[in-house]
């Protein structure tokens, strides 16, 4: 078996009809996935990852080209292929009104697993996924991570020779993601399975043995993760300048020619340069006295950004004209958000209990937690979408219960799914939100002009917002939230589903806003994004586990084997500590 590739695409194209035009999703693609390995399919949003998966599973017909799965032509014999592969779609393919056991039985029936082989296989899968105690629970009652593992168990009920996982880890917390990877590798080891998975998390790339980089339906590169990052050796650095602050430093650096990428990493800024060799930063930033710079180990993400930036050559515009803050930024002075002993009950159940924190003007404050930790409930109470059971919430110095309408006039809100009126055009959306915040005609015209320019939406002014690319939707949603120049901006998972390039751009804008004195409260499940926050809280079971700066949190998990822990390491460490305490207590 080894040697022959498990999946082969030869000159495969597939186009879709969208808005009257034919858009290629996969464009004359040649790939070959090696057998017996874990291969990652990586690319920005709309690169054609899902289309590729569906083509391989025989769910879509290619316009041209040949696809061979395990040596069989998918076009000619889809049923033969489908009886030897496993495929887990983005939403796991579970029947939420069936129990765990019933889901397994159903897929075992469909996959033709003989009754005698079922029990040992079920036992093995349940043990591996840790679902054994829950076999009689309805799938809909499982947590996101457990659903994902059950979905995987269902596709593995008859060990397939090729396993296709389409964005299986989206929206799942880091702990569950780690467990999923363990299961996948065990399958490869025990059954010699071939795995192809697509992912939007670049940090997961390093867990794959082979990476296929996809962009605009074409293959940009293929190889081991190291083979991608190795060429960048000598081009990645960490820069710090305490006198300037990380945000201003990042903004300044991103405009230095020859620098491909500058992102905040802890208290420092990580650089990727276009050419190898040191950059003479002191000459570029002569006014910064305490600038320090050291070389950094290149990772896959650096390579990803470097490769894509080359092929796109777009630079984010600075957010000129953002609302200027009356005071200088800092955590001093009157808190903009003050939460004291916040509680929310649903019946007997406490979704949020005893949450207390304050956020100062111009701060970027993060709210992190696993699924079901209570961060969304807290967030919704803060913006007045959910009544508070007990405790006080003051936003911009106003009590949300009493001066609701006035308090709401001072905050901006951007929801997870970029809640826009999809059949209204960009300008109509902006006009509506401006009017809803009571802007008069002159101010409205002025702010719409500002939004179109600052967010580079001019080219789409009259397109329905539903037809915008995802990155532009995100920009429009942000522009809409800023029409009335709010003092406080609430962001609920603002970057979910958006590719890494657009996420960088987005955070640069947020940085600029915070610089100008806007207070930002954000929830996210991208751990690397937590680095952008000045301070953050991590929640579990409705309570605040810890509060502090990202550096403080990471410092707690520094050890000999992990001298430089990531935010994800810190998060998982905290959750594990919490779980142990819970167990000890009970």
């Amino acid at each position: 078996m080894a040697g022959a590739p498990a999946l082969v695409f030869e000159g495969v194209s597939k186009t879709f009809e969208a808005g009257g035009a034919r858009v290629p999703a996969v464009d004359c693609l040649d790939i070959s996935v090696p057998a017996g390995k874990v291969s990652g399919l990586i690319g920005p949003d709309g690169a054609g990852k899902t289309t590729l998966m569906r083509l391989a599973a025989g769910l879509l017909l290619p316009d041209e080209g040949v696809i061979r799965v395990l040596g069989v032509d998918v076009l000619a014999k889809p049923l033969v292929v489908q009886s030897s592969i496993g495929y887990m779609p983005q939403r796991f393919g579970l029947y939420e009104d069936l129990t765990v056991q019933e889901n397994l039985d159903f897929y075992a029936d469909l996959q033709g697993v003989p009754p005698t082989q079922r029990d040992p296989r079920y036992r093995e899968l349940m043990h591996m996924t840790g679902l054994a105690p829950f076999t009689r629970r309805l799938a809909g009652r499982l947590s996101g991570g457990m659903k994902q593992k059950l979905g995987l168990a269902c596709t593995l009920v008859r060990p397939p020779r090729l396993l296709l996982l389409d964005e299986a880890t989206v929206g799942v917390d880091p702990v569950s993601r780690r467990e999923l990877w363990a299961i996948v590798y065990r399958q490869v080891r025990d059954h010699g399975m071939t795995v192809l998975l697509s992912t939007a998390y670049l940090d997961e790339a390093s867990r794959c043995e082979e990476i296929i980089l996809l962009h605009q339906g074409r293959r940009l590169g293929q190889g081991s993760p190291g083979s991608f990052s190795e060429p960048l050796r000598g081009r990645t650095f960490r820069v710090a300048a305490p006198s300037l602050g990380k945000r201003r430093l990042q903004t300044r650096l991103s405009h230095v020619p020859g620098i491909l990428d500058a992102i905040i990493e802890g208290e420092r800024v990580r650089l990727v340069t276009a050419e190898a060799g040191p950059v003479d930063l002191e000459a570029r930033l002569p006014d910064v006295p305490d600038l320090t710079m050291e070389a950094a180990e290149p990772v896959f993400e650096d390579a990803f950004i470097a490769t894509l930036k080359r092929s796109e050559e777009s630079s984010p515009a600075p957010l000129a004209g953002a609302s200027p803050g009356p005071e200088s930024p800092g955590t001093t002075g009157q808190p903009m958000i003050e939460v004291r002993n916040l509680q929310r009950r649903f019946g007997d159940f406490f979704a949020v209990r005893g949450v207390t924190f304050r956020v100062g003007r111009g701060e970027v404050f993060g709210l992190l937690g696993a699924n079901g930790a209570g961060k969304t409930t807290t967030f919704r109470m803060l913006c007045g979408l959910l009544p508070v059971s007990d405790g006080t919430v003051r936003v911009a110095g106003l009590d949300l219960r009493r001066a609701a309408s006035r308090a709401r006039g001072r905050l901006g809100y951007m929801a997870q799914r970029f809640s826009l009126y999809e059949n209204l055009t960009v300008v109509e959306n902006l006009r509506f939100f401006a009017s809803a915040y009571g802007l008069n005609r002159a101010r409205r015209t002025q702010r719409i002009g500002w939004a179109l320019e600052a967010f580079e939406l001019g080219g789409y002014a009259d397109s329905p917002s539903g037809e915008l690319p995802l990155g532009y939707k995100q920009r429009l949603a942000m522009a809409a939230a800023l029409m009335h120049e709010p003092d406080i901006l609430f962001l609920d998972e603002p970057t979910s589903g958006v590719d890494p390039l657009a996420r960088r751009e987005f955070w640069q804008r947020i940085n600029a806003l915070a610089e100008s004195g806007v207070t930002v409260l954000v929830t996210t499940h991208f751990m690397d994004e937590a680095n952008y926050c000045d301070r953050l809280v991590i929640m579990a079971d409705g309570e605040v586990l810890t509060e502090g700066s990202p550096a403080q949190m990471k410092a707690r998990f520094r050890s000999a084997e992990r001298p430089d822990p990531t935010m994800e390491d810190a998060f998982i460490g905290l959750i594990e500590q919490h779980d142990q305490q819970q167990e000890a207590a009970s």
Partner: protein
Amino acid sequence: MESLRRIFALAVKELLAILKDRKSRFVLIGPPIIQLIVFGYAATFDLNDIAFAVYNEDRGVASRDLIARVAGSPHFHRVADLEHDGQIAPLLDNREVLLVLRLGPRFSADLQRGRSASAQLLIDGRNSNTALLALGYLRTIVSDFNSDWATRNGRPGPPAALQVRHWFNAGLASRWFVVPGIVGLLTLVITTVVTALSVAREREAGTFDQLQVTPLRPVEILIGKSVPGILIGLVEGSFILLMTVVWFEVPLRGSLGALYLGMFLFLLSAVGIGLMISSLAVTQQQGILGAFLFLVPSVILSGFATPIANMPPVVQWLTLINPLRYFLVVLRGVFLEGDSYALLFNQYWPMLVIGMLTLAMAGWLFRHRRH
């Protein structure tokens, strides 16, 4: 002032969102026209070309005269002449004819001799309404035959005769009754569906949260969401009204102002109910199901097709909370009876009360049902 601006912005946005969506545009235009035409032509109780058979054992002039009158009527169509008794049952059983007219061998002779002659009529009663109507038509024909026979033969007619006049609808055209009802039916369906989905759609798209974090107050959201429903209902209603007069040629005898006052009050109550359903529904699916659950009973219990007076008393009380019941009276009153404001007062105020109550409920639900 700022509040007005916000309401105006919301109303404009609602209208744009409805009119720009191809699917909802279709819902506004397609079904009303199709239903108007189908209802207008198909939903009629008038009978035409009823198939009937004759079993005539008589050879006289009188029987031939009577049969010719029946066959000559536009309501009846003679399809068979029978030879013996045994043929009757299969024809009726198999629904080949609706009725069989049987004249005995002494029919003409009895009449000539000045005695009453009997004409036997066998009717398929599977559809009892059709049977009764056919019987009614035949009664009229026979009654005309009787008086003509009496005059022609110089005999005295019956000592007393009915002189029937039909007010408001002299030709007894079902269409005059049904089509004005469609105006009410369709405006109700459209406004309910439009408003019942308006909040649910925003909930699904996540924009309702977005709306709630703006300074818009619940009352402002309520007004901003009602106005488009009422406007669309008025436009759509006016169009169907025009079709009723121009295409179906139903006379419009009363005051247009009284009609529009009724329509406005009716739309107010329909919008109130739609928004109430909408604020209860979490998904569009639930919204459409809720609208359906409201629409079906309210059409059945409105007097649109069958009279309220025929229903059991309990059901009749139930109809009192149905706004369509009142609007149908307004419509038919203005169209056919030439009613004006004063006569319709008792229809106006219940609609106003229903509208106010449901809108207040919807406003309360906005605030108290967030998930």
